[in-house]
């Protein structure tokens, strides 16, 4: 079987191509892999699973539930604002609701869902069997779930945070937000930041070390590039919120003075730290969406994306610029003039890489042959909406302009065009593209078109008038307004538009549940898409690919001659084994055993989670929780050698 140890570049001069793998061998390998990678059934199996697909599916489902909750909060706000001096909800609840809406959408929906899609697809797309650290991955999900449950549990007990998703001090500090509301927010951040950082470490390590042989840097799918760049952004942006939320928590709980001006603290320190995280956060949501757009455009035009290197450089430069413009959230604070101009320039410069990508996609479409599926429609919608958001973005990068529209509904309109248009529309496009892979069944195109048109129309009715409201002087985060302000009619229109979005979301859910049972069977590759996730069955088996593919081009399936896939042989089938390859050229380096399923991540999340929650009330939570967590970690890392292991790898036998 040993054909070549070097990087396999199939080349026609080479004598004797290796024979096809026979059906008997394939079914034998399939049986062995299925047995080895079988997930435990039942509730306990569910708790212990470390398979990246099971965990990512949970992530996606949980994130969609939070998306719906966040949407309900949005609908309540729209109901309250639909007419002046409305008495539907008062200031206390309204402030909780808009804080919950922002926190939910940013921390519990957008970032997790983008990472979740990555955690599902990246291993399939790069041809490996699991993420690099499967147990850690499970821990990430449980922490994320813990954060969400903490936030919503508190909210339903009327202890929802009410200082905004940005929690500006001193409003969020001990003097002006007594009670536990803001503590809940700060600890929710702790949970979700741990989860996001774990996801980022997984994605980077997996992409760096586990790509299929031959998938050199210039053959990585754009979606995977987007995930890689995003993961790096998470790694460098999230520590800022780790540090600042810790400072906020200690200011509130043990009387430190980071943000207390009377003792030398500084309210602006919070803003700098928060936006050093908060602005990259937008690109953390947006860049994975760009990857999804590339996948969808490529699939539904049946054309390779034009300008692949330019696309990658654009994403990388967006990521770099994303760290250089946090101050544009702070133009109304005292800042030196020169600094402001720098941040204006950096903010408008984002339009260049965004432009490059948009033009490359348009060129790809121009040269291709589009199929107007729902997925592709959502991408067309993305162009219509995101460009509006991008253009208003250039406008508000200007300091004098921003000073007029900052913290008004103009900004609300702007970032909903950017985030809904630029991230949620691609996400829907991706959902329609990959649902068949996840479930083995197609979504209904008819319902899909309804889903799209209602969303597209509703989105514009809801958010376009907000531009005008902002210019008419309506500030953000107000629970009511006076009739004489003249904002009533446009607010009513905006609230009316929200009904379309709600209807669209409902149709989407119906489509998802209905198609789960009655959708047409998808087959391996229903769209004739080019990337490796389509080279395995739908849904993929727990071990992903029967044999690890060998990649011979940027679009492995399209490039494979006559439906033949070159693959790797010789990996062990009796344990969770994958292949580690080199960073640049993906040359095989070693075999790698993935950790197996275990209850420990769940236990650790429970212990760490209750410790974080107890810390809201007493600092002792940290000490006790730390000791318990160490005990679990010790079990986690303690070596276990199971009977089926090779004895030769064990240098020294322990006591049985």
């Amino acid at each position: 079987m040993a054909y070549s140890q070097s990087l396999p570049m199939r080349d026609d001069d080479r004598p004797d191509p290796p024979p096809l793998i026979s059906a008997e061998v394939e079914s034998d390998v399939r049986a062995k892999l299925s047995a080895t990678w079988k997930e435990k059934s039942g509730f306990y199996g569910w708790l212990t699973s470390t398979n990246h697909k099971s965990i990512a599916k949970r992530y996606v489902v949980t994130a969609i539930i939070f998306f719906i909750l966040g949407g309900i909060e949005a609908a309540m706000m729209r109901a309250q604002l639909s007419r002046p001096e409305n008495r539907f909800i008062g200031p206390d609840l309204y402030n909780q609701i808009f804080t919950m809406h922002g926190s939910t959408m940013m921390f519990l929906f957008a970032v997790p869902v983008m990472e979740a899609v990555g955690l599902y697809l990246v291993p399939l797309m790069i041809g490996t069997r699991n993420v690099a650290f499967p147990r850690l991955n499970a821990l990430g999900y449980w922490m994320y779930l813990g954060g969400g449950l903490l936030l919503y549990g508190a909210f339903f007990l009327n202890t929802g945070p009410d200082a905004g998703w940005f929690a500006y001090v001193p409003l969020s500090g001990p003097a002006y937000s007594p009670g536990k509301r803001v503590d809940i927010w700060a600890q929710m951040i702790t949970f979700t930041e741990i989860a996001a950082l774990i996801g980022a470490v997984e994605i980077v390590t997996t992409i760096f070390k586990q790509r299929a042989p031959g998938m050199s840097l210039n053959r990585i799918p754009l979606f995977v590039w987007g995930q890689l760049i995003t993961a790096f952004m998470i790694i460098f942006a999230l520590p800022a919120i780790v540090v600042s939320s810790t400072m906020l928590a200690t200011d509130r709980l043990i009387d430190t003075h980071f943000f207390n001006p009377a003792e030398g603290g500084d309210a602006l320190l919070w803003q700098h730290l928060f936006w050093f995280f908060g602005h990259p956060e937008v690109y953390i949501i947006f860049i994975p969406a760009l990857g999804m757009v590339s996948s969808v455009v490529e699939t539904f035009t049946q054309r390779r994306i034009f300008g692949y290197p330019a696309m990658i450089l654009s994403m990388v430069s967006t990521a770099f610029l994303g760290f250089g413009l946090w101050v544009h959230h702070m133009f109304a604070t005292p800042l030196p003039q020169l600094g402001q101009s720098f941040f204006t320039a950096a903010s408008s410069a984002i339009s260049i890489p965004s432009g490059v990508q948009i033009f490359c996609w348009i060129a790809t479409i121009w040269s291709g042959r589009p199929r107007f599926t729902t997925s592709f429609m959502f991408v067309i919608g993305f162009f219509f909406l995101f460009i509006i958001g991008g253009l208003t973005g250039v406008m508000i990068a200007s300091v004098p302009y921003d000073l007029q529209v900052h913290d008004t509904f103009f900004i609300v309109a702007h970032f909903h065009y950017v985030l809904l248009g630029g991230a949620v529309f691609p996400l829907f496009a991706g959902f329609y593209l990959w649902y068949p892979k996840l479930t083995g069944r197609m979504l209904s195109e008819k319902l899909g078109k309804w889903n799209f048109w209602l969303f597209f129309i509703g989105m514009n009715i809801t958010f376009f008038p907000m531009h005008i409201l902002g210019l008419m002087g309506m500030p953000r985060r107000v629970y009511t307004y006076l009739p004489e302000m003249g904002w009533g009619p446009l607010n009513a229109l905006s609230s009316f538009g929200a009904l379309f979005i709600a209807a669209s979301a409902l149709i989407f859910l119906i489509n998802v549940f209905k198609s789960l049972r009655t959708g047409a069977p998808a087959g391996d590759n229903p769209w004739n898409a080019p990337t490796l996730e389509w080279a395995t069955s739908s849904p993929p088996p727990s071990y992903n690919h029967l044999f690890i593919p060998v990649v011979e081009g940027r679009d492995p399936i399209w490039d494979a001659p006559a439906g033949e896939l070159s693959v790797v042989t010789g990996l062990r089938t009796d344990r969770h084994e994958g292949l580690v390859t080199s960073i640049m050229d993906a040359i095989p380096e070693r075999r790698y055993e993935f950790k197996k399923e275990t209850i420990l991540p769940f236990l650790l999340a429970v212990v760490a989670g209750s410790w974080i929650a107890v810390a809201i009330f007493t600092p002792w939570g940290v000490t006790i929780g730390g000791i318990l967590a160490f005990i679990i970690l010790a079990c986690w890392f303690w070596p276990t050698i199971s009977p089926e292991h090779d004895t030769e790898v064990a240098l020294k036998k322990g006591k049985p």
Partner: protein
Amino acid sequence: MTATRDRVQLKASTQSALGVVSVALLGCSGFQSVLDPKGPRAEDVARLHWTFTAIATVVYVIVISALLYALWRASTRKPFIDEHQYHENPDQAAVMKRGVIIAVSATVIIMLAALVMSVSTGSAVATVPDAKPLRIDVVGHQWWWEVVYDDPIPQNVVKTANEIHVPVGRAVLLKMRSTDVIHSFWAPNLAGKKDLIPGHETVTWFRADTAGIYRGQCAEFCGYQHAKMAFYIVAQPRLDFERWLTQQRETAPKPTDSLTQTGERVFLSAPCAMCHSIGGTGAFGNIGPDLTHLASRRTIAAGTLPLTTGNLAGWILDPQSIKPGVKMPPTQLDPQSLQALLAYLGTLK
């Protein structure tokens, strides 16, 4: 907007203080609007807005047309049969490359043009045009605005709330601070925002070129009643402004009839005086707004209600139902005391 005008307009008794500010000036197109500039700062930005909007519209139309053209052209093409099924042939590649390069170059040029416009407008609005602007101190409170016209002579210091009188045509320099949380000062017809940050003193300026009454409101989320933290800028001809300022320097008139005398007693004996001050009386509270010239103001509760006797009565008895969470507690008063108090407050012009 007639109703608006009526509601914002004060009782006839206060109109003398407003001088020539007429009903007609109030209404025009929006008294809290970015696009109805009444001073140089807002004018520059409004111009910038229309320029940006025009450019953005043209760019949008061009890009979307290109997208639609690409979609149309691609869908009318015959299915691929050549070896370039999955990627462009060399001819197409050349066209695409040229197209993308032209489009990106145009993006860069437009971006730079926008940047130049932005920076030049930015430096224009950052410069105070007058050598000797009128200086006013503004202090942000949850949820009202304290306004102080400082003066070297202590008796001449004027304190008011939620209403800033300024002379037309003279630049006004605001020195701002906050005693609690972050607020943001914003009167869109005159100028962009500036935050009021505890521990930092901030400065902003504006100039009203037309007499009129301009509404502004807090633009940084500051808690419960962020929505009801408005103020008015009353721009008056210079003489009217000076007359107003002189009048504001006076202490409250001594009550003359028995009703208002009772009212003053009620004010001083009820909890009112713990938080509010009235010049010339024993009330020196500094938690709430200074009420020395309450009746000369247009609104109460930071622009929440027009100042009418009925509104004032409702506010005194139960502020929490009008502005939930406000720091002012409800006050229990029997009807006679209330009447007297209202009559007394009505004399504080």
